[in-house]
């Protein structure tokens, strides 16, 4: 799972999935389809709340939130 973030100024404005490597696992694919819009919303909130992790996140969201964190760190956005 790789995440692409769009930054305007120093503000995160959009998040999308750059690549989704789930090995063709149908369960994984179906969960990803349901989860991604939710995860994007959660990631936007994560940035505004200045948090390092999410508890109770779903199947792939832990990976997503942390991928996002990694992307943000690279961009120097806090």
């Amino acid at each position, binding site marked *: *799972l790789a995440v692409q973030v769009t930054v305007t100024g120093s503000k995160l404005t959009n998040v999308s999935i750059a690549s989704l490597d789930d090995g063709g696992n149908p369960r994984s694919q179906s969960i990803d389809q349901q989860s991604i*819009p*939710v*995860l*994007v*919303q*959660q990631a936007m*909130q*994560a940035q*505004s*709340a*200045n*948090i*390092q*992790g*999410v*508890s*109770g*996140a*779903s*199947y*792939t*969201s*832990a*990976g997503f939130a*942390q*991928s996002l*964190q*990694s992307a943000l*760190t*690279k961009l*120097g956005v*806090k």
Partner: protein
Amino acid sequence: VTKDAALDDDGLTSLHHEIEVMGTIVTIDLFGVTERKSEVVVGRVDLAEASLHEADRVFSTWKSDSPMSRLRRGEISMQETPPELHEVLDACFTAKKISSGWFDPWAMPGGVDPTGYVKGWAAQRALRDLECEEISGAMVNAAGDIASFGGPGAGARFRVGVTDPFSRGDLAFVVRLDGAIATSGTYERGPHLIDPFMAEAITRGASASVTGPDLGIADALATALIVAGDELIDVIEVIEGYEALLIRWDGTNRRTTDFALDSEVTVAGPSSP
């Protein structure tokens, strides 16, 4: 599988690593890594990853040849199982006792199933491999159950969001983290938690979070709390080092006295169902 190292504003690096294991994604995040020590730190991450895969090999109930699966089918006796299986079942017995029987791996259909404890236990064990002077803190996040030490920088504490059970894109609360946090909810996989007293799938809370020094115990108590509901808050109140937050089906919540809720930020309170 990726290892991303990045420079932050203070010239320190953080390191992010994702591992597909135990039927989910486990992420490792290291903070305040001094760049010249990064090789030492990467070696630590490799140890933690191997530890997680080893836990999967021993405990997976999906892998038919794991020692756990073979024990469940009665193909091997306890004497023939590896020592960590004894350690886990002993801890499960303790968790059953301190949760007044609400966490009970022996009440699961298909024989003893410590899955509700193992994921947290494995993440906590992997965290031990990461402890070193070269970093300010680390988090091991096993699909929303988090083991940690230290913080994002010197003297700072981690802040962690708790998913809003009524609005999955939102966070219900932000918690200051000192150690581990586990959250149980039915919003992800539908009803899948068994009431050990009634032997049926039932939950008396919408979401249950437990913090404390050990993620295995926190995970077991969070499972117990969402099944039992309010009465387990009183039980956890007197367990040394552990705190709890229950979000009820009506959107109200109840916490133990010292639950480390961040008073500054409530991102989005649970709305009425």
